[in-house]
């Protein structure tokens, strides 16, 4: 279904490539940000202790955005740098990274419920664009996570599955808005996360226009 991910004349993988191909290594990379809050909490950082829930809420939301942007960056990296073997190695983990973005978003939402003490004002709050968009983003990620199992891919069929999963781009746009609206003034970190992603996608579109990918008989070499 997908084109071969390794060049035909493959040299033995170097240590970096082996590392990034390792599922265990990527798992560790993904879990560490979730454990990070233990440090300021256990070391009694007063800024964090002032409202630990708010800290956890923002931290998990931030990591969810980061992982969502990361998983979407993997495909353009592979398209733009087909001979960069780290990019190929990382592309093996697309599902893992995508599902982990969902789990961070799930924790984020859980902390929001705790922060709002069960969220008694849920039905009035959800009419506010900031919170509505956040919830919509979460629902998209939920659909993508549920359809990430192999049997779901088979059940939907490759083309339909791919169309459904294009919703991830919508989710990224909504997440960028939601993250920006979470603060009183525009937080610059939103730009750090989503501008590189937007540039990568743009470059990928330009590249694919010039050389349609996956078309049989298309020249294999880069221009």
């Amino acid at each position, binding site marked *: 279904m997908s084109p071969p991910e390794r060049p035909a004349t493959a040299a033995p993988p170097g240590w970096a490539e082996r590392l990034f191909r390792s599922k265990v290594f990527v798992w560790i990379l993904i879990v560490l940000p979730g454990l990070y809050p233990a440090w300021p909490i256990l070391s009694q950082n*007063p*800024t*964090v202790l*002032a409202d630990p829930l708010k800290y956890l809420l923002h931290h998990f939301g931030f990591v969810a955005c980061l992982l969502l942007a990361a998983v979407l960056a993997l495909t353009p990296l592979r398209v733009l740098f087909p001979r960069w073997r780290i990019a190929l190695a990382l592309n093996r983990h697309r599902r893992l990274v995508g599902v982990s973005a969902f789990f961070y978003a799930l924790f984020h939402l859980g902390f929001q419920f*705790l922060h709002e003490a069960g969220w008694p004002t849920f039905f009035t709050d959800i009419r*506010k664009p900031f*919170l509505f968009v956040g919830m919509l983003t979460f629902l998209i990620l939920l659909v993508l996570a549920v359809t990430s199992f192999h049997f779901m891919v088979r059940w939907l069929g490759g083309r339909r599955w791919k169309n459904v999963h294009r919703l991830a781009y919508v989710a990224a746009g909504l997440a960028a808005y939601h993250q920006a609206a979470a603060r*009183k*003034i*525009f937080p610059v970190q939103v730009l750090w996360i989503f501008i590189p992603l937007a540039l990568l996608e743009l470059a990928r579109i330009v590249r694919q226009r010039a050389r349609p990918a996956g078309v049989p008989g298309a020249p294999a070499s880069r221009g």
Partner: protein
Amino acid sequence: MRIRTPKSWEIRESDVTPEGVYRLRNRRDFLKTLGLGAAGALFLRSGARAATTGFPDTLNPDYSGAGLKVTPYPLVTSYNNFYEFGTDKGDPVVNANQGWKTEPWTVEIAGLANKPGTWDVEDLVRKMGGVEQRIYRHRCVEAWAMVIPWDGFALRKLVDFADPKPEAKYLKMTSFRDNVRDRDAGFDGPYIEGLRLDEARNELAFIATGIYGKAIPNQNGAPLRLVTPWKYGFKGIKSIVRMEFTADEPVNTWQQLARDEYGFYANVNPTVDHPRWSQASERVIGGGVFSGRQATLMFNGYEKQVAALYQGLNLRKYF
């Protein structure tokens, strides 16, 4: 022989806890004492030290914090919004203490006043008759709340001292401007806030020069800041350099940044939501993970003192 009558704000030398005694208390012990709330207030009363060097300091019995649980000092001084020093809550405690000098400091009284002039902060506090302590609720527009023991003087004293002209209707306050840090603030120019003159004369309006009986830390707005406990925290302009009496309503910084979200009045009001979140309830700072929320009170619980100011005003429109 000269017979000296003690002023009402003076406390006897014997009432003051020797520095050696309270210095011995370690931070954890200090926190624990304060955590007891009312007992903490008692401790403060006996242990209070001058807020601005050399001034005696007594708790105002009208604002003794009865029934309120005082927020621990380390939290009050490390969870701050002071955008000139960075937009994260933990930024000001670091960035405001890297060589930023708040002493000596002068305040200019200007505009439609009969007694304009520039005053050294120490002189000004002396002219206001020294400092007193008041324990006030503090409610941020971001829906979190603290209880803070402030030291300072009633803003009304300063207004009377400046002697505004009849055409003066507003008091516009301007904060310092530190060019080095401006790039982090997210807004241009100095922070600006304002009050209607009758608001400034309300008994609650307060100029703080200290917290917890100590000089106010830089991140909390050294050396003097506004405290208006019935309004959202952003009204409490920090590190004031200029007080100008005006005929027109000043445009405050947050109104300039987002007119649809922040107004001139900024009165705490559980029935008027922020466009992005509910104002019906608030989280208590220092409450921990499972503390839940408490209901937000109209005018932050100071309805008795300030409701008369806003009779006939549409609070939904003038938020």
